[in-house]
């Protein structure tokens, strides 16, 4: 028998869910509001901020005039796309071998990879910084791409491994019987079947790489600084400029928010891939 929900509890549940949703969305909404205020209005009490007159684009104009937004934007695009492509090149064969030719140690290897995510990044900051310095990678897009690829690689391999495990082994065996080489098996059979999973992995990695702040701030200065570093440049020793900081944040997160919004169906589909047969 289907579980029945009374109309009253349905209304209450909807209201509670709506309230929680609003709470989660509130910080973004507040940044949007602040970004359209003058610095003077942005430091007032919250209610005063909301109802004060004087909505302005001034902060956006100042940010645009002071910083080269497009340079930071292109750095973000190159770093997040580059790290994703590189990670896929490594992760697809790795996940394939662990999913379809597992050894006694596969589970341990997977756990070991995941354990690297349990270490606080700051724990390896000094050695990585020194390596970057010695290999002349500081403030380079190439260096940052490599670091972000390595940082997100365990999660990508885990996600792809989970998706690949859902593909029946018999289909790959059929491809082998049909004369497909390993490369052809991956290109013609495995990859097209895992497209929803790969797509959501790609999207998630782009989002993670786009929003990555710790490494981008610590390993870049001006040349390779992506949008996360661009935001922090408005949190200066002279004080916090809330309106400009908010405007910079909006400019930084807008592209990824728009991408996330349009690809949410794919993202959700990928993240729940295999949950229901």
């Amino acid at each position, binding site marked *: 028998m289907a579980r029945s929900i009374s109309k009253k509890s349905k209304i209450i549940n909807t209201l509670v869910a709506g309230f929680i949703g609003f709470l989660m969305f509130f910080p973004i909404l507040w940044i949007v509001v602040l970004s359209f205020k003058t610095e003077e209005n942005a430091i007032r009490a919250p209610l005063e901020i909301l109802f004060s007159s004087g909505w302005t684009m001034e902060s956006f104009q100042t940010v645009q005039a002071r910083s080269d937004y497009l340079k930071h934007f292109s750095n973000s695009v190159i770093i997040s796309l580059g790290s994703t492509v590189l990670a896929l090149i490594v992760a697809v064969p790795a996940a394939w071998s662990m999913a379809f030719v597992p050894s006694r140690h596969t589970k341990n290897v997977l756990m070991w990879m995941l354990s690297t995510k349990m270490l606080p990044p700051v724990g390896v900051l000094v050695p990585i910084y020194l390596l970057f310095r010695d290999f002349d990678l500081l403030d380079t897009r190439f260096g940052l791409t490599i670091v972000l690829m390595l940082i997100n690689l365990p999660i990508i391999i885990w996600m792809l491994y989970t998706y690949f495990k859902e593909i*029946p082994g*018999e*289909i790959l*065996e*059929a*491809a*082998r*019987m*049909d*004369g*497909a080489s390993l490369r*052809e098996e991956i290109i*013609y*059979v495995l990859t*097209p*079947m895992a*497209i929803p999973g790969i797509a959501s992995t790609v999207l998630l990695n782009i989002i993670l790489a786009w929003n990555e702040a710790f490494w981008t701030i610590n390993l870049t200065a001006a040349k390779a600084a992506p949008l996360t570093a661009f935001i922090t440049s408005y949190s200066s020793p002279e004080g916090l400029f809330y309106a400009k900081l908010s405007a910079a944040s909006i400019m930084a997160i807008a592209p990824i928010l728009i991408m996330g919004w349009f690809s949410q169906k794919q993202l959700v589909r990928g993240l729940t891939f295999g949950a229901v047969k």
Partner: protein
Amino acid sequence: MGRIQLKDVQKTFGNVEVIPPLNLEIEDGEFVVFVGPSGCGKSTLLRLIAGLEDTTSGNIEIDDIDATDLPPAKRSLAMVFQSYALYPHMSVRKNIAFPMKMAKIDLETQNTKVEAAAKSLNLTDYLDRKPGQLSGGQRQRVAIGRAIVREPAAFLFDEPLSNLDAALRVGMRLEIMDLHKKLETTMIYVTHDQVEAMTMADKIVVLQDGRIEQVGSPLELYHTPKNKFVAGFIGSPKMNLIEGIEAKKLNASTIGIRPEHIKMSKTEGLWKGTVGVAEHLGSDTFIHIHNTGLLEMMTVRISGDVQVKHGEAIYLTPEKNKIHCFDAVGDRIL
């Protein structure tokens, strides 16, 4: 050509010996069925022949060429899987053409062969559909089509009809037999269903715990089972296997009598029992008899529709020349 020889082929997984050293010869054009209960190693044996599993020791020869270390694609074998194993993102046409694409055969030949295979399998109208839009029977036909276009030395079928409903299974069984007659290519067919084995095979290989119990034609296995296991496995309903005094009278440890070789009477007979459940199939009636003192339950098969009452006393008499005798180890006594 499609002559396959297994010479001392052995397979172990870790310390577990799944297939003890085994020898088997399959002649060109034969329809061979591997049959046995679940876990007897029949699918593993097929996968060893296909090259999907590596042998631990021994040799597999295909057309007198040692294929033991050849990859699956180089053995010129085609396989049809239980789950169909179709490529879900490709149309029926692309599924069938896939092996030819891998073999870099030109597009024109590919198309001609796909059309011909589709025609012979009644798939012409479905060529542009995806596997997900087909019924189980159609999917299995696509899998067969994909195997046909390779023009292999032998076809390997791994329980191909298990996922189909009973009616469709009978239809597909006939289609596969028909295909064998048309192509005259060696076919190795794995099943746990002894009816499938009996109706389709030129030669049946009965397996238990990875060992070959008997190899022979369906009727050979039915009339002269080599041991108790084969006697009990081949034939439906199962042979009645009786131990004790009745067996000792014939100097055997166990005697076997098939349900169709027992006469039933309401007035006289060798053994007395009471009627349990009767299964009326129309053409035959299977009657289960209890309290005979020989077996917990004996099965008798009577031609036509016979009316018996539950609990009614009944007499049974076996046809003497149809009794099978087995020794203490379970081997047939000649």
